[in-house]
């Protein structure tokens, strides 16, 4: 079926403070129901550089960029992390008791499976004073060419013609997990209790009511914009196409993701002699290996684009700093919800 419209999303990584309010909003809204969803974060925020969620997902492969027979299926404990419970009742004495100062202890013991969805938060890389990291919020990319859809032998995965949102029909799904293998972003999850695969639904019931998806509306940093790709008046269109400051995450996976990122600026590094250099702390090399416009862009073109985006952002900042106006900075500040959600 032809896709009549495509919803898109932009995250400004310069504004993400890593508070995980988006992840918690999503968790509360969608995956707080049964035991089979405990390990799932349809929206997660990971620290970059880092191992991500599920662990090392960038090295697992997907339907269009790996040998389909060798793509591994992640493990819940080792890959997504054990969903720990804490002894809050005991510590907070909500059920009485007079245990002297009990310690807050996670169970099962994390040493058994030393990984979790946010295991390496804020670790980053680099040596003081040039250490660096940034946050990467991730949802399903609702790709134009969804690898999960392609991988499903039962047509259980479909892309809605009215907005391009990619969904799994729970009645068609038989839990074969080809979609989990297929998605190179590992944004399809398996629910071992329900015995079906599940994923981000882009809060489609809210989109149908012209409300923003929950991760966006709850975002404390107001880092995201949503709108339709063909709406030339929308801020999302301006960020992606007019100002050209938003890039796709791993477009080389060839799925044409519809979530875009404004790459993170960072302070300059110090030289050995404590002088400020011209190089940003977050290496352009690292960003160029993550972000780009299209799947056929090469590494050098990506480096050029990221530098170009940094120049645009810096120029527009300078304009405003010296008392001028900037449409781009106005959009990025996003004073009201109406600036961010144009659906």
């Amino acid at each position, binding site marked *: 079926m032809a896709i009549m419209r495509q919803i898109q999303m932009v995250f400004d990584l310069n504004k993400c403070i890593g508070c995980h309010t988006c992840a918690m909003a999503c968790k509360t809204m969608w995956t707080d129901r049964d035991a089979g969803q405990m390990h799932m974060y349809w929206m997660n925020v990971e620290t970059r550089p880092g191992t991500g969620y599920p662990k090392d997902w960038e090295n697992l492969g997907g*339907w269009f960029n790996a040998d*389909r*027979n060798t793509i*591994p*299926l*992640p*493990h*819940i*404990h080792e*890959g997504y992390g054990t969903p720990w419970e804490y002894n809050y009742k005991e510590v907070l004495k909500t059920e009485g008791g007079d245990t002297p100062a009990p310690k807050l202890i996670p169970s099962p013991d994390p040493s058994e499976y030393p990984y979790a969805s946010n295991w390496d938060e804020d670790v980053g890389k680099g040596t003081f004073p040039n250490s660096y990291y940034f946050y990467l919020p991730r949802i399903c990319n609702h790709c134009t060419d969804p690898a999960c859809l*392609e*991988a499903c*032998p*039962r*047509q259980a995965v479909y892309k809605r013609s009215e907005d391009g949102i990619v969904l799994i029909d729970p009645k*068609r799904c*038989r*839990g*074969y*997990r*080809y979609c*989990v293998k297929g998605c190179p972003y590992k944004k399809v999850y*398996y629910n*071992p209790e329900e*015995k079906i695969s599940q994923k981000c639904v882009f809060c489609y019931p809210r989109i149908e009511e012209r409300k923003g998806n929950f991760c966006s509306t709850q975002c404390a940093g107001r880092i995201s914009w949503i709108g339709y790709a063909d709406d030339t008046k929308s801020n999302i269109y301006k960020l992606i196409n007019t100002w050209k400051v938003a890039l796709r995450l791993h477009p080389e996976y060839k799925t044409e993701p519809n979530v875009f990122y404004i790459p993170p600026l960072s302070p300059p590094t110090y030289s050995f002699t404590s002088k400020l250099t011209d190089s940003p702390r977050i290496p352009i090399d690292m960003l160029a290996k993550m972000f780009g416009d299209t799947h056929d862009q090469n590494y050098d073109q990506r480096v050029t684009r990221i530098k170009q985006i940094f120049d645009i952002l810096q120029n527009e900042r300078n304009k405003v700093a010296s008392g001028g106006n900037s449409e781009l900075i106005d959009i990025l500040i996003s004073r009201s919800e109406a600036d961010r959600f144009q659906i």
Partner: protein
Amino acid sequence: MPDHDLSGSSRAITAVYIQGPVTLAPLDPAWIQTPETVITLSRRIHETGAKMVDMGNENRRIKVKVVHNGTDIFFFYQWDESTPNVTVNDYSLFADAFAMEIPLITEVSPIWMGAKDKPVNIIYWRADLARPENIVGGGIGTTQISSDTESQNIRHYQNWANGVWTVIITRPMTTASHNQVSFVRSATYRLALANWKGGSDAERGGNKIISDWLYLFIK
């Protein structure tokens, strides 16, 4: 349905008539007096993108016995499985499964899940579901569990012991469901079997071994 004279062929199975009640127990006397047919499953399905069963792992033998008492029909299946795969509590794990397929409205249908105008009726069992499902297929990728109450009439027994799976499936011979085949005495039906070996990133969906069409005669 025309009669097929297949006596003596390993592809012929006779549903023996037993007078009186038959139970789902594997030690029910009905099974003692019923000869078994050993069916070899050796056809690998090729499904775009999906893994195929590894070469050398495609010859599987299933012991089949079928009885009926004029009211209910019972299918007794047994096959070797050194390690039972029942629990699916991680992404990588898949359970052992088995299915039997019969053309739904035509004498013959394409063995690979039928076709739109030649649908098939499948009874699918998977170790972790621990319940048989009545399914209708009209081509690869189209199978659907029937939701009508009339087709919720299948009962089963499953047990793994000493390296052998035993699965017994029973259903009324006559059904009011348009998603099920009704069995008539003296008629012959085509029947195909499928087997999935569970385990890590193991067989599921089209990644399975099937038999050729077999001929089930209802005595």
